[in-house]
């Protein structure tokens, strides 16, 4: 297992470590619920350095990236970041990523840790020359500062006005005296920032943020809380809601697709899927009785299996179990009822609006 430069600090903070995406990372420091509530009520700081980065320099590389990314990279202004997809020729999902336009001839992607090798291969296979692209995953550190107190905390340690940075924009600034690229993005639905750093600067920035943020309620937070938070925000996780066989239309991600014939790899297949109509859709549901829905649980209606839970668990904010599942479009409207089968018991569930909080 690989380790981020913050490994020793995590241990010193009492973190329990787990394997994720080939990395040894904290699942929790104190308690998943406590860290989750801290993010919703104040702020949490996550080490997400395991995620990958691929850089594109020069017109050929930018053009190639545009041909793979589901949104209009060519038209994306410097200083803006977009969430979008990489798709395969069959219209399934290779990865879900964020794409940063740094300058006219410079962009980078932030990709899921579990897909770094695959995405890198995907880029190289679609380029004439590899001279304009670099896989900088191993050199790049990444922290996520999330929660309502994030702006106040970053203002204390940043060289620029963090409050001036609007959603899906980014800027270079110093954080704790170290050069950083800071974007107003995140994976929690709680608002906040993602902070790109060099590996060497990670310990200083992480510890300074924790020290300066503690009076404002900042706590270090691990992968356990990251997952409960993103589930409450109804954000997909690659490998659960998204994979090579899954249509982004079924996943409800049509607004992240610049759907024009030939606009990106997979666009044509997705257009055909759209014309054919969707048979199933990703929905958010809440259990109406006690129990916990988990990934893999069958979804049933009148005794027949009609779908499967892709992500599920307790919602710390709502105090009940929530989840995401692909179900037939006929039962995908909010208020639709079905059962989620947990250990052979059929628990009543209803489709609810997402995000859950």
């Amino acid at each position, binding site marked *: 297992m690989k380790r981020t430069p913050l490994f020793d600090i995590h241990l010193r903070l009492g973190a329990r470590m787990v394997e994720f995406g080939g990395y040894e990372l904290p*699942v*929790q420091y104190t*308690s*998943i*619920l*406590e860290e989750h509530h801290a993010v919703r009520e104040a702020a949490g700081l996550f080490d997400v350095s395991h995620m990958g980065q691929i850089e594109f320099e020069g017109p050929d590389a930018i053009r190639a990236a545009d041909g793979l990314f589901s949104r209009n990279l060519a038209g994306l202004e410097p200083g803006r970041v977009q969430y979008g997809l990489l798709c395969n020729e069959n219209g399934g999902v290779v990865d879900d990523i964020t794409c940063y336009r740094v300058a006219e001839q410079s962009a980078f992607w932030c990709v899921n840790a579990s897909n770094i090798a695959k995405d890198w291969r995907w880029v190289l296979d679609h380029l004439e020359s590899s001279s304009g692209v670099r896989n900088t995953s191993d050199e790049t550190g990444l922290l996520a500062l999330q929660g309502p107190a994030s702006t106040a905390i970053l203002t204390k340690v940043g060289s620029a006005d963090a409050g001036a940075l609007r959603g899906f924009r980014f800027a270079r600034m110093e954080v704790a005296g170290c050069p950083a690229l800071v974007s107003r993005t995140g994976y929690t639905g709680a608002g906040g920032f993602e902070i790109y750093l060099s590996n060497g600067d990670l310990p200083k920035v992480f510890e300074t943020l924790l020290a300066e943020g503690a009076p404002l309620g900042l706590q270090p937070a691990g992968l*356990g809380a990251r*997952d*409960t938070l993103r589930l409450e925000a109804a954000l997909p996780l690659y490998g659960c809601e998204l994979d090579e066989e899954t249509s982004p239309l079924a996943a409800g991600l049509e607004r992240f697709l610049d759907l024009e014939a030939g606009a990106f790899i997979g666009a044509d297949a997705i257009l055909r899927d759209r014309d054919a109509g969707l048979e199933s859709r990703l929905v958010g549901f809440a259990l109406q009785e*006690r*129990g*916990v829905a*988990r990934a893999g649980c069958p979804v049933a209606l009148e005794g027949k299996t009609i779908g499967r839970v892709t992500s599920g*668990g*307790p919602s710390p904010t709502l105090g009940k*179990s929530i989840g995401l599942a692909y179900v037939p479009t006929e039962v995908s409207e909010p208020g639709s009822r079905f059962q989620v089968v947990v*250990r052979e018991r059929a628990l009543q569930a209803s489709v609810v609006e997402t995000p859950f909080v």
Partner: protein
Amino acid sequence: MDFEIPDELHYSKDDEWILLEDDSVTIGVTDFAQQQLGDIVYVELPSVGDPVVVGEAFGVIESVKAVSDLLAPISGQVVAINKNLADQPEIINEECYGTGWIIKIKPSDADALDSLLDADSYRKIVSKRSA
């Protein structure tokens, strides 16, 4: 890591504690177990009157990320369940030896109690596993 292991209780290798009373025994999970599990979010319990069989699951305890069986340390019949766990499963994290008790069993075989671990034996097991 520090684990509370009260001397007056008995223990099973499955990290349960057993309090011997006149006609029944009270069962819960140990401090080591609740720390390993993390935040408890749901407990599935048998009904009063149900039989339990030594070594077999009598219920389920769920944390945020995981599901674990609760294994019966002895055979017998359920005479009481902790109803507070329905709405407040986190009591087990807060007070696993007190208000976090899980079920009471009337043992079917008094001799089975002899095979339970004492506090010192359980302490040795835990220190090996947490090393």
